[in-house]
């Protein structure tokens, strides 16, 4: 199945998003990047690095696990519980402009869960959404502020993002299921 983004295109998309973030947000010391586990976390770190490359400012990064906030937990009596990973937000999010980072935006339910989870850590000034791929098919009124690539897909397809930190290589592939 086709690889729609290779390592180079992913790197370029992230560099562009870093520029867009700086263009839209003038108070850089108010920014913080929070990645949604799992693949949002390395993306958030890469964006922090890209921002540092541009203007030498350090944007703090955190990791959010949204499993306990999912709306499909315990709907079936058969499936085993999904694995929970650690949430690590080592700074106060009060009055920060939070850039929430995920790999794929699809139904919007993960983002809904992430917003619920995030609000319990404090009251940010604003939350903006960064995604590497927007594949459409939203089920909730959620829209990304920064998109690496808009990728129209059919419901029978799935989008697999692979990142070096987790999967050993960078690529985005569309799979026929």
């Amino acid at each position, binding site marked *: 199945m086709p690889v729609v983004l290779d390592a180079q295109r992913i790197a370029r998309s992230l560099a562009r998003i870093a520029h867009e973030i700086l263009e839209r947000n003038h108070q850089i010391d108010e920014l913080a990047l929070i990645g949604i586990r799992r693949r949002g976390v390395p993306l958030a770190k890469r964006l922090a690095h890209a921002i540092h490359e541009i203007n030498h400012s350090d944007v703090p990064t955190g990791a959010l*696990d949204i499993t*306990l*906030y999912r709306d499909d*937990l*315990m709907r*079936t*009596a*058969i*499936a*085993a*519980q999904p*694995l*929970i*990973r*650690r*949430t*690590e937000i080592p700074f106060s999010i009060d009055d920060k402009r939070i850039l929430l980072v995920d790999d794929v935006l699809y139904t919007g339910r993960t983002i809904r869960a992430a917003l*619920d*989870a995030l609000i*319990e*850590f*404090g009251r940010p000034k604003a939350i903006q959404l960064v995604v590497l791929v927007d594949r459409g098919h939203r089920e909730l009124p959620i829209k990304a502020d920064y998109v690496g690539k808009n990728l129209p897909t059919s419901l029978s397809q799935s989008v697999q993002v692979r990142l070096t930190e987790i999967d050993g290589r960078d690529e985005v592939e569309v799979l026929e299921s």
Partner: protein
Amino acid sequence: MKKDLLSIDDLTSDEIYLILDTSEAMREIGQRPIKKVPTLRGKTVVNLFYEPSTRTRTSFEIAEKRLSADTLNIAVASSSVLKGETLVDTALNIEAMQPDMIVMRHASSGAGHLLSRVCRSRIINAGDGMHEHPTQALLDAFTIREHKQRIEGLKITIVGDLLHSRVLRSNVRLLTKLGAEVWVSGPSTFVPSGIEQFGVRVSADINEAVADADVIMMLRIQQERMSGAFIPSLREYFNTFGMTKARVAKAKPDVIIMHPGPMNRGVEIASDVADGPYSVILEQVANGVAVRMAVLYLLAGGVEVD
């Protein structure tokens, strides 16, 4: 995971590690300004305690509330049990009100198994007589792993009233399953016959048992369960088996001292050891909440139906 958690035998080593890893994530919730997640919203958990308990009941209740479950506590002192209702009848009446889980402590060994046969709700054993206390063993394992980064290959010495201890029985099952070298020590009246079959080393000499130990776990002298003269006197017990600084010095320099509580200071453990630098006793209590959250979460979800 199975439907119920009645015994450590219900768990495979993979499932034990899954619980410990999940507990790591759960612990972070306790450090947040808002210590609550919506996971068990709409689930009802009944805490049915037939024996006095502060730590375990409070720990379960905090764990349930942090996961947003609706909890209710039935203390037997104020229930119909005093009017002569049997355990099964009490359980079936509670069950008729559609709870999702029942956390039970009872003075009789196997009480949880009895409930598990008649109840559709998931049962978590919070201590049954002299049989098992699985969540205590899990939180002990979590505490040990946090300090030693492993359990396999450690020398773990358990000292005290072995006979009456459900904490011992759960810990021995869990620690031997994960590959620790478990030693037990205590007066011969407290050593259950056939305990070697569980794969532990027995020594009547406490100095041999604690020599080079990585972990020392003290057990409480359970005077409420004793029907005869097991020990000549508490003072003599302390002199022979009490954990003192001098005995701690025979263990590894980075030994940790554990106790499931409640402690009898000056009986099984000296105050300066209980409050000393090696003691992780209060960490055990803190970790108990995270471990019970993990157990509640993992049991509340799907189970394989056979």
